[in-house]
């Protein structure tokens, strides 16, 4: 169970607006998070991962307090170990596909399985600059899965994929997510895009 009750002031072009989220996500659920541009979808994911601190509130994950403003508790991202798929992919320009996965895990069998899942086996020695947008996006997803996260946060993870590749990837992802018992939050500007994957939905006003 993930229990979130946070407040964070967001700077906008015209003044500030308050991001308020009070929501519980069941363990193992896959939730799509949608809402208007600038509503704070990406910020919410970054708050959960520990990259941004909210002003007030608390975050509890499977009975462990990750953040509590009143008690001044705030686990570092390294302690939270969320799988995170960034909207800009955040791939490391100095590393090949294989090195990305080896940086995240030493489990060679798991790396082989991920490469097969993402159909990136022929590109193991390629650096991100030599990959297509879709391949880069798949690598970002594989890297996040490499640490076998209990919580996977994905920010527009399928936007650069063609429909056929997206469907194949989502089907493979479903199996792995079920196997790892991972809770997934997927941010999307287009709720239809993740309809095949998500079982729950949450709108940020």
């Amino acid at each position, binding site marked *: 169970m993930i229990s979130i009750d946070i407040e964070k002031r967001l700077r906008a072009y015209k003044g500030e607006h308050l991001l308020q989220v009070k929501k519980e996500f069941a363990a193992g659920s896959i939730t799509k998070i949608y809402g208007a541009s600038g509503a704070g979808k990406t910020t919410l994911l970054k708050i959960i991962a*520990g990259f941004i601190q909210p002003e007030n509130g608390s975050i509890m994950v499977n009975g462990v307090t990750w953040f509590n403003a009143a008690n001044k508790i705030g686990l570092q991202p390294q302690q939270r170990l969320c*799988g*995170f798929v*960034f909207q*800009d992919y*955040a791939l*490391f320009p*100095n590393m090949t596909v294989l090195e990305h996965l080896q*940086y995240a895990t030493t489990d060679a069998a798991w790396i082989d399985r991920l490469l097969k899942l993402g159909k990136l086996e022929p590109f193991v020695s390629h650096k991100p600059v030599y990959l297509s947008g879709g391949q880069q996006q798949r690598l970002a997803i594989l890297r996040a899965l490499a640490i076998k996260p209990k919580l996977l946060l994905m920010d527009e993870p399928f936007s650069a994929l063609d429909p056929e590749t997206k469907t194949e990837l989502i089907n493979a992802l479903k199996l792995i997510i079920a196997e790892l018992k991972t809770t997934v939050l997927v941010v999307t500007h287009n709720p239809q895009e993740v309809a095949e994957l998500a079982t729950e939905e949450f709108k940020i006003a």
Partner: protein
Amino acid sequence: MDPTPIWLTLKLAAITTALLLVIGLPVAWWLSRGRSFFKIVLEAMITMPLVLPPSVLGFYLLLAFSPQHGIGLWLQQTFDIQFVFSFKGLVLASVIYSAPFMIGPIKSALQQLPVSLSQASHSLGKSRWQTFIKILLPNIRPSLLSAIVLTFAHTLGEFGVVLMIGGNIPGVTRVASIAVYDAVEQMDYHSANLYSLVLFAITFVLVIAVFVFNKYQLKSPLE
């Protein structure tokens, strides 16, 4: 031509560059993360040698480290270290004088990296140190090389500040730039020309090497 000033200059440049690399990397990383008034003041102080006449910096270093009073007296009495008119003093002055050439480019390069690169590494459980060594540093390699070469080349050409704190002691503080000045003073244009030519050649080769290395990054070493 006595080669000692050239060797002394190369030794000074190598030690200064190595020390600044060790000091400059963490300082540049720290400065690149967020802003505070203290950081602005510190950055301004690091940048001062770019705009301050070298003789002014040399004068204050001379005052500060004079063994007659203040820090200089304390260093002399406590550790038996004397910076004025010694090679150690040249190193100290060079580190301060060349600091902006090492710290500036590295700080700018670190600031230009997307913050999501560090965040991605942290989300994989990697510490700040691992992230710095494995992700940040390799991705600022061209700027790092530029900073190293600029620091080395700039130290080769120091004159005012080293003259003020080191004087002109043959074999100890008489570096190539001072040897050129000394030779001209004595109307020995031949020696002055030889020292100048060697300094010019070394610096030119270094700058060309950086341009060639950075060719594919389309970056100028002056960026």
